[in-house]
């Protein structure tokens, strides 16, 4: 069964149930009220006649019935029946026991009174006398029931109309929902068929479907970005690993062939160095993936970024000094608290400083600063080296995106990528800017990222 039809039927069914409940309520209310009044009158009449018989006997009863027939209102039914049901006196046109059940108590029956043309519903009470005859006290339910019949008819019609309308609305609704969903499903299908460029069309109404569509589109954007990054990564990983692996193989081969013990030791040392450098590349790649997978959130803590930067500057100052450069640090006068992963941020910042020393210094100044803000903290490392032209900055952030391909040994070109991954872990970003001349790398971190809120 197609979804559209199912939704329409469901809507119809729901309309039916709801209307049925309402109509049922009205029906019982009116029905019960009309009958209850009539019944009260009948019970009263029966009681009067029974009392008359008890006190005055058969003769008094006959008189009372005659009086009732003469003076009572025309809605009233009264009769004295023989034990077999035939009428002795009374105004019943309908004869027991064909219509009226000869039994003690209350019953509802369609009866015709003498002088009337149509049978009408009446409430009756039969009471058996000790002699075997039956007193019948009754009353035509009359107007109350007549209104009820009209009402019943109207309610039935209303019910049918409501169900039809429900089905109709259901069909419209189902069609609308189905169309919106099928838009999304179509996109999902195309994506399954490996066309990641598809996007869910948005109606612009900003409703739940649009929100779903936006979510899916955002997810797709992220997936395609990751996919292309992954492809690039595997390509460059394969490319970058090839040369150390072949160097390692050559050194191992030469060591195995060499007859000279000293030379052999030398070559084996080189094998170990090559293996170490391979390991370093692999663990850096792993580290980036893990930062991106948002691991280690539980290791988030409050700490002073100003102090962390001071520590790293102190650590790297001698290294910069060896290269003839100087690290200047403008330490903020007050602590700069940040909720984050101290170790990873230390690693990110040390990567930036190492980069500045490696590529940007040669006798000049490296400036480190921490800019405290209400919501954002900016940790900046600025060098006076050649910098990176604006059009190549995206390339520089990528894994293995080392711009100077002639450097084969130091740095696998993962520094900026790792720093960026760590910034993302803190819901911040890594900015590369021109320092005129030189490069400014800025870690921009929210003081307290939403997801990293301590439990």
């Amino acid at each position, binding site marked *: 069964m197609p979804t559209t039809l199912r939704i329409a039927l469901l809507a119809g069914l729901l309309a039916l149930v709801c209307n049925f409940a309402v109509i049922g309520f009205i029906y019982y209310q009116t029905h019960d009220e009309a009958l209850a009044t009539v019944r009260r009158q009948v019970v009263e009449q029966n009681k009067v006649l029974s009392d008359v018989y008890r006190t005055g006997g058969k003769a008094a009863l006959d008189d009372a019935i005659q009086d009732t027939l003469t003076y009572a209102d025309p809605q009233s039914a009264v009769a004295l029946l023989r034990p077999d049901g035939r009428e002795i006196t009374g105004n019943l046109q309908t004869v027991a026991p064909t219509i009226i059940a000869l039994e003690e108590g209350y019953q509802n029956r369609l009866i015709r009174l003498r002088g009337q043309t149509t049978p009408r519903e009446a409430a009756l009470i039969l009471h058996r006398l000790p002699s075997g005859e039956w007193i019948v006290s009754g009353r035509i339910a009359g107007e109350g029931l007549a209104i009820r019949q009209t009402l019943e008819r109207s309610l039935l019609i209303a019910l049918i109309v409501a169900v039809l309308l429900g089905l109709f609305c259901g069909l419209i609704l189902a069609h609308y929902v189905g169309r919106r969903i099928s838009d999304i499903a179509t996109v999902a299908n195309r994506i399954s068929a490996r066309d990641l460029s598809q996007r869910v069309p948005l109606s612009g109404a900003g409703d739940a479907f649009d929100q779903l569509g936006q979510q899916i589109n955002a997810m797709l954007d992220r997936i395609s970005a990751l996919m292309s990054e992954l492809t690039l990564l595997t390509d460059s990983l394969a490319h970058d690993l090839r040369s150390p692996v072949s160097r390692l193989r050559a050194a191992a081969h030469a060591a195995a062939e060499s007859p000279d013990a000293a030379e052999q030791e030398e070559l084996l040392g080189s094998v170990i160095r090559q293996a170490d450098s391979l390991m370093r590349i692999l663990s850096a790649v*792993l*580290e980036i993936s893990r930062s991106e997978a948002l691991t280690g959130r539980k290791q988030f803590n409050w700490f002073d970024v100003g102090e962390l930067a001071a520590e790293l500057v102190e650590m790297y100052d*001698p290294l910069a000094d060896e290269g003839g450069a100087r690290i200047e640090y403008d330490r903020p006068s007050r602590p700069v608290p940040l909720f984050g992963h101290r*170790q990873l941020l*230390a690693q990110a910042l*040390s990567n930036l400083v*190492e980069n500045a020393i490696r590529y940007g210094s040669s006798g000049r100044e490296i400036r480190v600063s921490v800019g405290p803000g209400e919501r954002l903290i900016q940790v900046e490392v600025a060098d006076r080296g050649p910098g990176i032209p604006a059009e190549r900055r995206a390339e520089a952030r990528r894994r293995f995106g080392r711009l100077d391909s002639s450097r084969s040994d*130091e740095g*696998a070109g993962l520094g900026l990528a790792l720093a960026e991954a760590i910034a993302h872990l803190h819901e911040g970003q890594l900015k590369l800017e021109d320092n005129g001349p030189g490069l400014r790398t800025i870690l921009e971190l929210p003081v307290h990222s939403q997801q990293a809120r301590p439990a």
Partner: protein
Amino acid sequence: MGRKILLIEDDRETASYLAKGLGQEGHSVEQATNGQDGLFRATDGSFDLIVLDRMLPGLDGLSVLKALRAAQIDTPILILSALASVGDRIEGLECGSDDYLVKPFSFAELLARVNALLRRRESRIDPTDHRLTVGDLEIDPLSRTVRRAGKKLDLKPREYLLLEYFARNEGRVVTRTMLLEQVWDYHFDPGTNVIDVHVSRLRRKLDEGFEKPLLHTVRGAGYMLAA
């Protein structure tokens, strides 16, 4: 001075290589190849050191570690792991291990750390503010002053910490990663020779002008302070 070391490692090749190496250093090595067995052997607390692989069949290394610490067994534990990320290392240390070494490692690195841990256990009873001496070098941890042959050396705070760490591991190899972890408390692998630069600065202040050098470079492993 041989010590009792428990090696919990499922990879037979690594285990026999390590057992052989530690045996040659004069330690007696007992081996377990899975977590349950290792935990069982370790619970009598008779070992001086436990070398524990993080990834084990059955009960994994961290569970063994937690179980031992929960049972109040304070034998020093060195974790070996192929999980190299900073987060993993810190998680390992936070679970109660005393040191964390990432695979693959050089045997020299492992040995240096094993010796440092054994040494730490030995010196646990010593008050930490005790005066340290190495040859004609004298260190007073309370006032943080250093004298060599009676002459006061002017060290920066970090250089002092570096020297104190060397002195507490006198005669033992200390690797670059150990220095980075213990003196700076950083657990990542810097891509530069930043540690060597610090050590060579310290060496200049420590050994320059003296006939006999105290701070030695151990090729392929790290450094050692010895008279």
